[in-house]
């Protein structure tokens, strides 16, 4: 069965890919088509709320192309981390889209769903059994924090995807999975070099980002006993030994080591060389199995309810003294909120950011210039749903608060009506831990359906 060819249409479903390149990929006889459907890259909201970052319409349009490609290639199609966060409801959401498309395309398909969400009681039990270990840095985990989390998922690895492949499913809809496991699963199963199976998967996990033309999306990776070969499928994209090697740096804290369920990959002694103008050959990565099998956990909890306001300053005196103004205003507002609403400052946070001064880098900013205008972004986050009322209380002061008491009442610029924007519930990541399992399937379930 070696070599095994894995076709990767893009770094994530929803980002788009070159259709011509996808067709080229199909013509090159892949053994499987694998695409990632999620990440924590956009912050905790998706996992906290159990929703997709990308629109359903975008996902459906791209998934349609991939379902057509799968039929043509007659090989399994795998998506990992359905609906960005990979919660169970997002696996079902993806199944719903797949079912709709199967009807529209008149396809009969067998679907395997991999569920990766974790029950709070299961996590609590494992915490008591000392089967959960913190990574660095990790929030202090206890029963109360577990109870506060809205969603907890475990990241599936190659073993769980292989179980799904073994069901003979045409389409595999996996919950939260490592970006690499959907690519490495089949080559590992068929006896390809283990270190290179993970390394090739890592190189291809962002699609054509490992090439000279990242937006073209589609790459093919061919795995064998001694290494892998990567090639972009667009005629306008090229892989060079540099673009491929450099991908190990991207979003990786360590450029040589990648931890995966069951062990880690080490690319310290890898060699990269161009076979031709387009293809790069890589050998030398090693796989180191760990004594105990563990999977990574992700969880998010509600950090509060948030409302934002934006006021713009153009008056030179206020632009120059923007920080002094908000410091003074902040003190005044905390007093007003306390007196009028009878709530203590511990129940909410009130923060001002100065757009045009240092709103991105904050205290790290070294280059405070002389802007002509400053945008003051006011963020209110409260434990209970009172941030809107605090914003309404603040509104007139944000518009008129003077720097000194013997001046004409100033009026600043409000760009919106209403002035405040309710941002609703906001979340925070609450887990950076691993969970030890006796059997890789202990925290995962597979369900089969046919449409």
């Amino acid at each position: 069965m070696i070599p095994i060819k894995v076709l990767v249409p893009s770094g994530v479903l929803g980002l788009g890919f070159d259709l011509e390149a996808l067709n080229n990929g199909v013509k090159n006889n892949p053994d499987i088509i694998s695409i990632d459907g999620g990440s924590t890259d956009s912050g905790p909201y998706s996992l906290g709320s159990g929703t997709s970052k990308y629109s359903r319409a975008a996902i459906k349009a791209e998934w349609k192309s991939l379902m057509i490609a799968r039929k043509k290639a007659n090989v399994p199609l795998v998506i990992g981390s359905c609906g960005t966060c990979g919660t169970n409801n997002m696996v079902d959401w993806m199944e719903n889209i797949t079912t709709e498309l199967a009807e529209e395309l008149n396809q009969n398909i067998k679907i395997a769903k991999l569920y990766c969400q974790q029950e709070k009681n299961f996590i609590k039990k494992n915490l008591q059994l000392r089967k959960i270990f913190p990574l660095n840095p990790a929030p202090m985990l206890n029963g109360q924090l577990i109870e506060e989390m809205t969603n907890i998922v475990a990241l599936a690895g190659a073993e769980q995807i292989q179980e799904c492949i073994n069901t003979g499913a045409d389409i595999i809809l996996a919950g939260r999975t490592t970006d690499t496991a959907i690519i490495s699963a089949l080559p590992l199963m068929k006896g390809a070099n283990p270190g290179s199976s993970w390394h090739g998967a890592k190189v291809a996990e962002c699609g054509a980002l490992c090439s000279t033309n990242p937006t073209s999306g589609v790459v093919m990776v061919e795995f064998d006993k001694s290494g892998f070969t990567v090639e972009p499928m667009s005629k306008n994209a090229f892989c060079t030994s540099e673009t491929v090697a450099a991908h190990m740096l991207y979003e990786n804290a360590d450029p040589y080591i990648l931890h995966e369920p069951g062990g880690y990959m080490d690319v310290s002694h890898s060699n990269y060389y161009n076979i031709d103008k387009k293809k790069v050959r890589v050998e030398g990565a090693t796989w180191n199995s760990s004594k105990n099998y563990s999977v990574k956990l992700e969880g998010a909890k509600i950090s509060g309810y948030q409302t934002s306001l934006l006021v713009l300053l153009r008056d030179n005196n206020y632009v120059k003294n923007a920080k002094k103004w908000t410091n003074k205003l902040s003190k005044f507002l905390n007093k007003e909120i306390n007196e009028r609403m009878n709530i203590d400052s511990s129940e909410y946070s009130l923060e001002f950011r100065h757009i045009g001064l240092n709103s991105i880098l904050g205290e790290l900013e070294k280059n405070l210039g002389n802007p002509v205008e400053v945008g003051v972004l006011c963020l209110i986050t409260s434990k209970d749903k009172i941030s809107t009322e605090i914003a309404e209380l603040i509104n007139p002061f944000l518009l008129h608060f003077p720097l000194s008491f013997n001046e004409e009442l100033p009026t600043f610029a409000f760009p919106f009506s209403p002035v405040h924007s309710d941002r609703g519930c906001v979340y925070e990541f609450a887990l950076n831990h691993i969970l030890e399992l006796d059997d890789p399937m202990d925290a995962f379930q597979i369900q089969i359906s046919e449409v």
Partner: protein
Amino acid sequence: MPTLGEKVKKIRSKNAGPFWITIDIFCEDKKTYKVVCNQLKNSKISSLLMISEQDLKRFEIDNLNVIKFSFPRKIIQGDIFDRDMHGAQLAVLLSEMKF
């Protein structure tokens, strides 16, 4: 005095999962790479980023002429006090640093 950004090909920064930030400094050639490796001290980077030197991991990747720094974020990605979720603007601090 020139800046580090003027000296090298590219500096980028990015979140590496929700809990870490990583910075890659790409040098044009081996000579520049050696100079940057020798002169860019960890103490300088940690004070620029206001983190402790022990938290800063440094990698010198010879075959790519890249110097890489990684460190745990003081504010976790997407926290209510986070100002730049992807940390990609942080690279500017190094670019504008006198070198």
